[in-house]
C-alpha cells in the first residue's frame, strides 16, 4: 500500500513552490540577531509611546518646586525629577510620542514625495531629468542642519512648521537615491523587453520598476529616521519645534542643560533615549539592506 502511494507522479516530480520575495527577506531578517534586537527595541519604543498614559507612573506635567532635580533613584522618582520637579520617567515615556512622531513623519512624507519625483526623473530621463536633478542639487548647497533651522526659522516655530521644514530637508537625498536606482533599472533588458511588448510607460513603472526600486529607497529612508530625530531634537532645542511644557526629548535636553553641573545624570537621560532610538533605526536599516539582497 505504501509502495503504491510512492508511485504517485507527484512524488517523483514534487511541486516546487518558491517562497515569495518578502518571505525570504523575513527569513533572512530572523536569522540576524543584531537586526532583530534593533527591531525589538524600536517596537518597544513604539509600544511605549502608544501606551504612555498606562505606563507612566506620574503626571508628566505636574511640577513641584520642592522636588526639583532629584537624583536618579529617589523613592517615587526612579529616574529623578527635572528642573521643575516633574517626574523624569513619565516625561521620557510621554516624550517618545512626539520624538518618534517627529522622527518618522518627515521621513515618510519625504519618502513619498522624493521617490515619486526621483522615479519620474529617472524613468523619463533627458532634459526633464536634468531640470529636476539640478534643482534638487541646489538644496545640497546647504548643510542639512542649517537648512532645517533656516526653513523652520522662516516658517516660524511650531510642530507643523518643523515637520514641513524637515520634510523639505529630506526630499533631496531621497530623490537622488530614487533617481539613481531608477536610471539603473530603466536600462535593464527586462525593461527593454517590456517596452518591446508594447506596454505603456505607466504599466512598465508599476510592474517592472517600482518593485525593484522601492526597497533600496526604503532602506535608505529608514537610515534617515535617526537623522530626522536628531534634527527635530535640535529644532526643539533651539525653540523652533516643540514648545514647553510638551515632553519631547530634544526639548527636555535643552531645558535641562542648565542643570548639567547640578545633576548631570538626569540631564543626560533624554540624550540617552535619542541615542538608543537612532542607533536602533540605523542598525535596523543596515540589517534590512542585507536581508533585501536576493542573492545573499
Amino acid at each position, binding site marked *: 500500500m505504501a509502495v503504491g502511494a510512492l508511485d504517485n507522479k507527484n512524488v517523483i516530480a514534487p511541486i516546487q513552490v518558491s517562497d515569495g520575495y518578502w518571505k525570504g527577506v523575513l527569513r533572512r531578517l530572523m536569522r540576524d540577531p543584531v537586526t532583530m534586537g534593533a527591531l525589538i527595541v524600536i517596537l518597544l519604543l513604539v509600544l511605549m509611546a502608544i501606551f504612555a498614559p498606562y505606563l507612566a507612573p506620574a503626571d508628566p506635567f505636574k511640577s513641584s518646586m520642592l522636588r526639583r532635580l532629584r537624583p536618579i533613584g529617589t523613592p517615587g522618582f526612579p529616574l529623578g525629577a527635572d528642573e521643575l520637579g516633574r517626574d523624569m520617567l513619565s516625561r521620557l515615556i510621554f516624550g517618545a510620542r512626539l520624538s518618534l512622531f517627529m522622527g518618522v513623519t518627515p521621513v515618510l512624507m519625504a519618502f513619498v514625495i522624493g521617490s515619486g519625483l526621483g522615479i519620474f526623473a529617472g524613468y523619463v530621463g533627458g532634459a526633464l531629468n536634468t531640470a529636476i536633478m539640478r534643482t534638487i542639487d541646489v538644496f545640497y548647497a546647504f548643510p542639512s542642519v542649517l537648512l532645517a533651522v533656516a526653513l523652520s526659522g522662516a516658517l516660524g516655530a511650531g510642530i507643523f512648521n518643523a515637520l514641513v521644514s524637515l520634510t523639505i530637508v529630506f526630499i533631496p537625498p531621497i530623490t537622488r537615491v530614487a533617481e539613481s536606482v531608477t536610471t539603473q533599472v530603466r536600462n535593464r533588458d527586462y525593461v527593454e523587453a517590456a517596452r518591446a511588448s508594447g506596454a505603456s510607460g505607466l504599466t512598465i513603472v508599476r510592474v517592472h520598476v517600482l*518593485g525593484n526600486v522601492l526597497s533600496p529607497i526604503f532602506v535608505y529612508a529608514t537610515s534617515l529616521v535617526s537623522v530626522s530625530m536628531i534634527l527635530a531634537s535640535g529644532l526643539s532645542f533651539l525653540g523652533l519645534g516643540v514648545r514647553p511644557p510638551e515632553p519631547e526629548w530634544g526639548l527636555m535636553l535643552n531645558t535641562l542643560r542648565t542643570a548639567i553641573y547640578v545633576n548631570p545624570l538626569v540631564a543626560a537621560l533624554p540624550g540617552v533615549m535619542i541615542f538608543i532610538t537612532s542607533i536602533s533605526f540605523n542598525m535596523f536599516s543596515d540589517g534590512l539592506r542585507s536581508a533585501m539582497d536576493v542573492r545573499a
Partner: protein
Amino acid sequence: MTELADMQQSVARDPRDRGGPRQPLLSVRGLVKHFPVGKNLFGRSRNVVRAVDDVDFELLKGETLGIVGESGCGKSTTARLLMNLIEPDAGEIIFDGEVVGHDISLRDYRRQVQMVFQDSYASLNPRLTIEDSIAFAPRVHGVSRREAVGRAHDLLARVGLEPHRFAGRYPHELSGGQRQRVNIARALALEPRLVILDEAVSALDKSVEAQVLNLLLDLKDAFGLTYIFISHDLNVVRFISDRVMVMYLGKVAEIGDAESVFAQPQHPYSAALLASMPAMDPDARTEQAPLYGDPPNPIDPPPGCRFHTRCRFADPVCSQTVPSLTPAGETQQVACLMRQYGSGHSCIGLEGRA
C-alpha cells in the same frame, strides 16, 4: 533551398500573412542611427558615432538571417532599431508590405516582432515569477490573467521546462540555459512572426548552447517563425542561418546565402572574417593573420569604402567612392568597388582571388 521554399509556403499560410510567400517579411531601407557623443554647453554635440549608416536589406519569410561582424559594427544597434527600442534617424522599415508607423501601428508591429536578449539574467525581472514574466506581454494586450498564465504554462512546456516545477520560481533560482528558455518563451507569448535573437546563445555553455539552438529550430517549424540571428560566433551562424549578412562599421559589406558566403566570400572583409575562424583541419590552419589593426573609430569613419584602411586590395579610388551593394558570386550582394564595373578599381576582372 527547397526547404526554405517549403518554409515560405507554410509561413504564408499564416492568417496574418498579407503579401504571399515571395514578399519579404521585412524590408529595411536606408536605416541610419547616429549617436551623439560629448555635448557642449548648449546640448549640441560635435561628434556622432555612426553606429548604423544607411543599411538596406530584406528578410524573406520563414528564413533565418544571420548577422555577423566584429564588436561595434552595428549588429545590436540594428536589432534595437528593428524593434524600435531606439528611434532611427532616417530610413523606413516595411513589415510584410506595410510601412511601420504609417500603414501598421507601432503597437501592432511589436505584437509580431519580439526579441531575445543576450544577458538571460538582466532580461528577466528579478521580482517576478517566471509565469508572471511570460504572462506580462499578453496581459498588456488585454488577455485575461487566467488565460495569460495558461499560455505561459503552455509555452514553458514548449521550451522544455515543466510548468508545475518552474512557473512559480524566480529568475535567480534557474540556471543560465533555463533562463534563456524562459526568455524565448516570453518572446513567443505574443505569437510573433519575427523573432530577433541578439546574441541569444552567446553567453551559454557549448552543450547548453546546442540544446537551445535545436530548441530554436524546433520552435521555428512549430510556430512558422522567421529569425534574425545576431552572433559573433561564426560556426553557430553557419549552422542556423539560411542567409548571412556581414556588417562592417555600420554598413552592410556582404549579404547572401549562408553556404555561398561561407564557401566563397566576395568581400575582402568577409573573406578575412571567415579566415579568422579556427579550422578543424590541421592542414587548413590559418597561417597568416587575415587582418591587421583595429577597426577605425566610428566617430570619424574613413571616407569612401570604410574598409579601405585595412584592405589588401585598396586602391586610391576606394578612399573616394562609397561602394553600393552589387550582385556578385552565386547569390551574394557585395559592397566592394572591385565588383562594381566602371568604378575604376584596378582589380576589376580579377575577382575570385580575394
